[in-house]
């Protein structure tokens, strides 16, 4: 009892002393800290859902926070998302902003990286120490005129997201070749599924890449074939034709709703039907399988496989990378931020959070079960690149645009002519 009393009295005394003490200076305003260093980051923002975390965004945020702590800077987020197809695209806005030095760091699609790289609007990142950890394919795909102008935080692999339950329901094997794919679509269509393939205006090109470059990247003669394309000896149209023929057939058979696709944003347009199991097949990037805001939590058995090609299921690999404005206002700070966010430590965090393929040779993380078929192919080094800066003609953006023409009603022949034109323009540069 005495002890308790003693403790109580001691506590009281401490409280009183605390209450009485702590007098401060007369000036009530706390001296402000020195001005914050700001680095502006321009990146897309997907339409958010209430009470759902965007895993991809969280992963990126974690690395940004890491950079802020290490570099003593504050990263300001600037975003843009097109409201609809009539709006300027993110890529267009990114180009505008980069050209006008609006921001310091940009998250860019491969075609934009190539375009801005060629314009000299992006700084050379090859001096960053993290570069030596990067996989060769990453460096090759992002090097323009000998400058490494973009570095991704993830190697984005595109694949077909299929509703395995529906395939099982109609006793269909997952397709390996374009023919098998068409057969599957036919069966689905016969069974009352109006549009077996959900599509948007961005990602139908992946079908084309898979068929066009399956042999180029997996035939053992890659460099020579690219050299032939860069010199004009070979024509892109020759590579692209079969893919476009295939898309044409999908459109003609009604397996793809071309009109809808042309005005649909990625995931926004087709995602709803896929999740509602009205559409058995869509195409998306690797991270969509991990993200609740995309296809991370389906009610059915979802699997991600490669696109049909002569070489079997073919993943299409592309890289959405960070670029730093060559004339950015806070270029030095931006470079320091890049050094951190692309370090192995940051990439490990990013990769673990996002469960993606890391651009660093040193970082490996298990993928979610749905991605296993796709991952297996990549592990086997079987994939095609959706963008390759070493090719003089930019493909990712250009092909997308040409596919849109096809969706808009152009013939395959007209599309091929467009490719020839584009190749010609590119070779002139």
């Amino acid at each position, binding site marked *: 009892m005495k002890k308790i009393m003693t403790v109580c009295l001691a506590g009281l005394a401490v409280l009183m002393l605390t209450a009485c003490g702590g007098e401060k200076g007369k000036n009530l305003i706390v001296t402000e800290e020195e001005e914050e260093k*700001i680095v502006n980051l321009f990146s897309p*923002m997907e*339409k*958010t*859902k*209430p*009470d759902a975390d*965007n895993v991809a*965004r969280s992963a990126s*945020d974690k690395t940004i926070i890491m950079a802020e702590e290490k570099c003593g800077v504050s990263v*300001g*987020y600037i*975003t*843009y*998302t097109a*409201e609809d197809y009539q*709006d*300027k695209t993110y890529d*267009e*806005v*990114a*180009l*505008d*902003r*980069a050209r*006008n030095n*609006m921001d310091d760091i940009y998250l860019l699609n491969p075609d934009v990286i190539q375009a801005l790289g060629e314009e000299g609007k992006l700084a050379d990142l090859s001096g960053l120490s993290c570069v030596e950890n990067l996989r060769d394919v990453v460096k090759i795909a992002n090097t323009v005129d000998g400058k490494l102008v973009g570095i991704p935080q993830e190697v984005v692999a595109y694949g077909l997201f299929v509703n395995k339950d529906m395939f099982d329901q109609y006793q269909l094997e997952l397709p390996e070749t374009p023919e098998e794919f068409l057969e599957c679509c036919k069966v689905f269509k016969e069974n009352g599924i109006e549009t077996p393939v959900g599509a948007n205006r961005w990602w139908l090109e992946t079908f084309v890449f898979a068929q066009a470059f399956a042999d180029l990247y997996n035939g053992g003669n890659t460099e020579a074939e690219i050299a032939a394309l860069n010199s004009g000896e070979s024509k892109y149209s020759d590579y692209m034709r079969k893919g476009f023929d295939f898309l044409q057939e999908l459109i003609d058979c009604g397996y793809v709703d071309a009109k809808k696709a042309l005005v649909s944003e990625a995931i926004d347009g087709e995602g709803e039907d896929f999740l509602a199991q009205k559409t058995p097949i869509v195409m998306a990037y690797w991270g969509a399988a991990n993200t609740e805001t995309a296809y991370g939590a389906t009610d059915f058995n979802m699997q991600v496989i490669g696109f049909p090609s002569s070489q079997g299921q073919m993943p299409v690999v592309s890289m959405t990378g960070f670029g730093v404005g060559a004339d950015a206002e806070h270029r030095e700070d931006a470079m320091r931020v890049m050094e951190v966010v692309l370090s192995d430590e940051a990439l490990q965090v990013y990769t673990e959070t996002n469960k993606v393929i890391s651009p660093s040779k040193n970082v490996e993380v298990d993928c979610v079960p749905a991605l296993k078929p796709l991952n297996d192919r990549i592990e086997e080094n079987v994939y095609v690149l959706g963008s390759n800066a070493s090719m003089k003609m930019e493909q990712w953006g250009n092909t997308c645009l040409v596919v849109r023409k096809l969706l808009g009603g152009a013939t395959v022949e007209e599309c091929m002519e467009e490719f020839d034109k584009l190749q010609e323009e590119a070779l002139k540069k």
Partner: protein
Amino acid sequence: MVRRMKKQKRSRKESGISLLLSIILVFCVLGAAVFSVSQKISKEMSASAIQNLSESLDLIEATIEAILKNEADFQKLIAEELAMTDDLEGDICFYEKSKAMVKISVILTGKTEGISSTGEKFSEEGLDFSAGKTVDGLPVTKSYVNYMGTWAYTMKCPIAKKDGKELGTLYIEYVYDSLDRSLPDGFYNKKASLYVMDAESERFVLKPKGMGERSAGHLNLEDFYRANAVSDQELQKDVSKCLENKQNMLFYHDIRGKSSLNYMWSVNDGMIYLVGYVPIEAIQQEGKTVTQNILIVVVAMLVAFFLCCVLYYLSQRQQNKIRKEQELEREIHNKQLAEALQAAQLANNSKTMFLSNMSHDIRTPMNAVLGFATLLDVDAENPVKVREYTKKIMASGKHLLSLINDILDVSKIESGKVVLNIEKFTLSDLVASVDAIIRPMTREREQNFYVEITEMQYEYFMGDETRLNQILINLLSNASKYTQPGGNIWFRILGQKQHSAQYGYVRIEVEDNGYGMTPEYLETIFDAFTRAENSTTNKVQGTGLGMAITKNIVELMGGTIEVFSEVDQGTLFQVDLELRIPEEQMDQEFWKENGIDHILVIDSQKEVCKNIQILMKDTNVVVDTVCSSEKAIEMLQEHSFLEKGCQMILLDSSMPGLEGRKGVEKIREILPAIPILFLSAYDTQGVEEALCLEHTGILAKPFFLSALKQKIMEMQEGKDTEWDVEETKDTNLEGMHFLGVEDNEVNAEILEAVLSIEGATCEIAENGQVAVERFEKSKKGEFDAILMDVQMPVMNGYEATRKIRALEREDAKNIPIIAMTANAFVEDEKEALDAGMNVHLSKPIDIDRLKKVIKEYTQGKEEI
């Protein structure tokens, strides 16, 4: 009592309920007070939050409006400046873009295409002035993403001469980013979110840095609704209405699980809106602290209250516990009292019953005494009848005496006054004395009495022989009493395995095949003052105290007594005693001195043989046993046996083939003159002839070593070999003169009469004092002995004896003084002997015993 307790319990329960109700009431009042206070505070805080936010938003609104107005003013100034120049399109090129004004263009009046400050061609295409919004009178476009990839708006201003002649129109593109620079860095500690929305397109055109969570970006109002789960259609309608009416709006809505105040704040007459939310906790930070403090106070009060309740409860519980313990104690006490009362009543009843029985039992022989005395008086002349009557009077008197002895014994044992007189004794004497008393009794009742001694290693023990005798007589006389004529009674002494070397473990069994007892009686057999059957109906006479006395004595000796019985089957009493073994137990020298080292036992009963072997174990004497006459003869003829040399044969008196004289002769053909000792169970029947021969004797079975030794000595001394224990010699007191000290005249008269019958004379002294004086005056040898009563007036017997012994006379030390008293206990005897008396005889006087004792002591005196 029970009702009172129930009442108490009920009242306690009621008080508990009322206490609980009071506590609940106090809580309700406290809760209501806290609730109303918190409600009031909440309302006030809510109003304060709205006011606080409104003021902040007003400030931002005013800032943005000021910027817009400045822009408009500046644009007007430029227009005025340009109006003064002749070459509008040429002069425009001199204007450079700034951070706010990113594009300055001019279109000359009447043309659709003009020129920008950058030199590019410019047209109104893509600029939407249709909404009719203005800033300070200048038309403003709908917001759009400009060539820089950022949200912008364009204001147009006519370029007119002072005379009113319009030269062209000045278009200046402004970016929303410029507003950011003029807005405060952070809003409600960066917890609030703020967007700038173009009212016309409902597009979010600016998210100022430092405003709200950086990861949250919204496209447009619809995206804002979706992202923040604003699904209430009514609310959305209200928002639309506000936008239409260019009004401000504040509403509560939870954003990511946090209660937030949402706002739509019109700027520049609804051209743009400030849209966003502030978590309530961010606005009411100090309010929150106040609430927390109130809560802490309330919680502290509640804790204190609970603590009080707990303390009260604990003290109540403690009190209840004490009360219960007291009640329990009282109950136990009451129970004990009730039990004691019951026991007292029972004891009282038992005693009443006992007294009634005693009264009856005393009256019966007394009646016989008085009745026969009357008859004696009548038939005094008829010697036959006189003898018959006196015999009956004697019998009744003896019975009365036994009754009185038992009563006294019980009373002494119960009062704890019994002290054991521990002395060395021999089992053989004990058995012999018991046998001497019981055997005639059983013979009289035509019962068979068997004595068996098994595996007894020791003969001498330390103990109270008298009390042991009492136990055995009690048990055996009971067995005899409760066994029908022709029945069997067994008296066994069994040696048991010793628990320690100093103590012999002896089991005494008394078994009969008589009437047996009912289980109910067995339960109370050892209780004092209780009897199995009312003596009125019991054909067997007895005090009913024997067993109680027996048990008490056994327990006093540290032993146990058990009884097993079945009606009409018989009864077995088992007494277990541990008796100390005296140190000088064995006299091994005896056998050596007498040259005995080998004995042959010929007995048909193996057990007898075995017992003798056990008995002789420590004597260093080899004991061979043989169970049949043939084998015995064979053995006797064996060379090896003869070599060993046998000094004595113990022969079963009823050994088939070796009976009596023939047997002796048969044996002596082989071993001439060998001493032969017959072992007999009862008497000399069949061996009388043989006993006439030399070196023969008879020993009662079972026997102890002392008896055997005695017999051997007798045989060696050539004494008579008589079966019976020495008969009482015919003694008389002829010519002897005694001093009788007796205060009771009747007793004195009886003493004189009895002695005169024996031919002796007696002088009576009426008390001790007189006796001392008389002896003092007497001549030497005048009195042969003094017969001294103990309880007497003036001087009692003990004191008188001490005084006599203290007299300075030669014969004072050795004159036999015999105590003759009604104080019949062992302690009395001890006291008598301590006082200097020679022997103690209890009244009534047994004339034979008196004679024997007188003779014993007077002879001794003579020898001296």
